[in-house]
């Protein structure tokens, strides 16, 4: 998933913990192979290569993932959409050169996006793209899915306390911190990483953050820190982070991007279809010196 995975196991003897960690790694690598669009031999690459021409029958688990993604696309009123790759790619190519794509280019890319153009034939369990050039990207789904599966597997093996994290942007906890009633997880100020903007208390829950950034937090090469609004086909404005806590790793992951691209006035209604969600949106306003974080919207807190 192109990031670091960390697992902290508590109250388990070292030998057993090492065994669990190895099993977790194997499990995650298997999920990565299935969901990665960059693994040329993987089933998703296979699908992306061919579904524009013929109906493709993906492996059972990938098929079920696509059905889940459709369900979340509907439940978020289109805000969560796994078909945005062409337009995402277009913006990235241009912004990395310091340009904006033309309206014509955007329209062209938009014609190759939209879950409505992804035809899932439930009888045959096949996938067909309505247009050539379409492409599925599970980047905003895979980590949450993998965490949810891993958490279930650890629970089944008797693990009661654990902290699981993908690059600290997708976190799932089992039970509570050994010295408190929950795992306290602070959302770091992206410009002052030692500062906590908001602290979530997680107990058997997941937390996912998505957002836009002017630069790479590690100070390296400039990455593409943009989120595309599927309705406008344009990146959302400003530097902002949406952090969502949920009992479900998948829902935390899905909602962190869906809420970010949904206007604040419509978010309440979107969330009426979900339960036990809490969320915080941090917006960074630039003044002369620095970017100051401000919590502009919150829910369930």
């Amino acid at each position, binding site marked *: 998933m*192109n990031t670091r995975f960390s697992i902290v196991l508590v109250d388990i003897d070292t030998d057993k913990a090492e065994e669990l960690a190895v099993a977790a790694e194997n499990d995650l690598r298997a999920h990565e192979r299935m969901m990665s669009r960059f693994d040329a031999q993987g089933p998703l690459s296979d699908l992306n290569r061919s579904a524009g021409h013929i109906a493709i029958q993906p492996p059972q688990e990938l098929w079920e993932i696509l059905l889940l993604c459709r369900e979340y696309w509907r439940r978020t009123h289109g805000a969560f959409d796994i078909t945005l790759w062409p337009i995402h790619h277009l913006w990235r190519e241009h912004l990395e050169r310091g340009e904006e794509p033309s309206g014509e280019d955007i329209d062209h890319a938009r014609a190759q996006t939209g879950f409505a153009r992804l035809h899932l034939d439930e009888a045959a369990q096949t996938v067909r793209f309505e247009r050539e050039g379409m492409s599925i990207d599970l980047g905003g789904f895979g980590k949450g899915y993998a965490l949810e599966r891993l958490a279930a597997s650890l629970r089944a093996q008797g693990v009661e306390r654990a902290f699981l*994290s993908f690059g600290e942007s997708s*976190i799932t906890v089992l039970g509570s911190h050994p010295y408190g009633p929950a795992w306290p997880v602070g959302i770091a100020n992206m410009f002052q990483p030692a500062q906590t903007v908001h602290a979530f208390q997680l107990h058997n829950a997941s937390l996912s953050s998505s957002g*836009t950034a002017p630069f790479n937090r590690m100070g390296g090469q400039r990455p593409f820190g943009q989120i595309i609004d599927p309705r406008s086909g344009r990146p959302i404005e400003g530097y902002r982070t949406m952090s969502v806590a949920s009992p479900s790793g998948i829902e935390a992951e899905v909602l962190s991007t869906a809420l970010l691209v949904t206007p604040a006035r419509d978010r309440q209604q979107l969330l009426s279809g979900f339960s036990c969600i809490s969320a915080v949106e941090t917006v960074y306003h630039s003044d002369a010196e620095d970017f100051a974080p401000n919590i502009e919207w919150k829910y369930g807190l």
Partner: protein
Amino acid sequence: MDYDSSLSPGSGDSGRAHRREFLKRLAAVAGSSTLLAELPWWAPLRAAPVGDSPADRVRIGLVGAGDRGNLHITNLLRTPGVEIAALCDDYEPHLQAALARVKGAKGFADYRQMLDMPGLDGVLIATPLYLHAPMCLDAFSAGKHVFCEKSLAYTIEECQAIADAYRGSKKVFQIGHQRMFSPVFLRALELVRNGTIGQITQIRAYWHRNNNWRRPVPNPSLERRINWRLYREYSCGLMTELASHHMQVANWFLDAHPVSCAGYGSINYWKDGREVYDNVNLVYQYPNGTNVVYDSLISNRYYGFEIQVMGPKGTIEGESGKLYAENPPPAPGILQLINGIESGFFDTVPIGGASWVPDLKKDTKGQPLVQDEPADDGSSLELAAYANAIRLGEPIPGMMEQACRAGVCVLMGEASMEQQKEIAWPEGFRV
């Protein structure tokens, strides 16, 4: 010792000027290394780089213009202050091909005649194993400096004879174990000595290929001469031709020779009339209970070749040039979380946030030992060291010991497999 890309020699015959510049920088690095006590053979590389004057020139005669011999020719042609004055091979096509590559070199079919040639400073022996000892001994008798390809010799007695002849000669001797001059292996040694992987508790090495290990033979009457590696009369097969490299590294890193060894070998796949094993499995026991486990086969290449130096804190893979920490440092936020748990604090850690960064995958895939893969695996530097040592007229310290340890080691392994019993290090062997 730090290596950077500026230390990598240029490739191709792009001129000895680059090479000279490279050696000059290298001399500075070698001179500043805290490891020099363990790298005595680097001493000649600290010498000032040579100029173009005839007095600086070292005249070398190469015996054996086969595969390895030709690689040496390529590297010698790029080494400042070296003249390939003579070429010798008793196989005419190889001799002619080599002479065509080196302008002005004199050709010989018999190495003894080459040794009589006036003005020759040193020889480079790249012949089949069974010829190493007679050629080394004759070269020392003729007052020549000697560079001998690995493995040192065909028998333990011959290894002893070469060591004895060298001891009285005051000549330069060098063995073709190029890893002694590889920046990657030097960095690996540094990490071993500074405790990065902890005490060495085991070394595992393997060399796997999937081919018949044959060279094309133009005429069946030449089979044994060309495919000498396959016949016991000339070679000990996988042990002397491949294993000797990794056994040299093991002895070097453990700073010891093995106490004993036991192994099994057989011909289980390439049953084509060859006489040397096509698969070997051995355990070498070192002082303090450390073992080196070695295997080699030529019917499967999946794992390739590698030497893995293992300790409680990490593993170093010399061939791929990677370090794998047993406990890679956690991400900063995770570290804070763990520290909190371990000290009994219940504290909010500012850990979450959107991340766009594929961070630090190197922790799981191993950290490179040197930042830019050096262009030279040591095969080129070892010749520069040889030439410098001849020019300085000073024997290369530690070199004969490395040659003997590795050479005897692989012959012990061969004996153990052939005699089906444990073989001890030869008592009284003297370097």
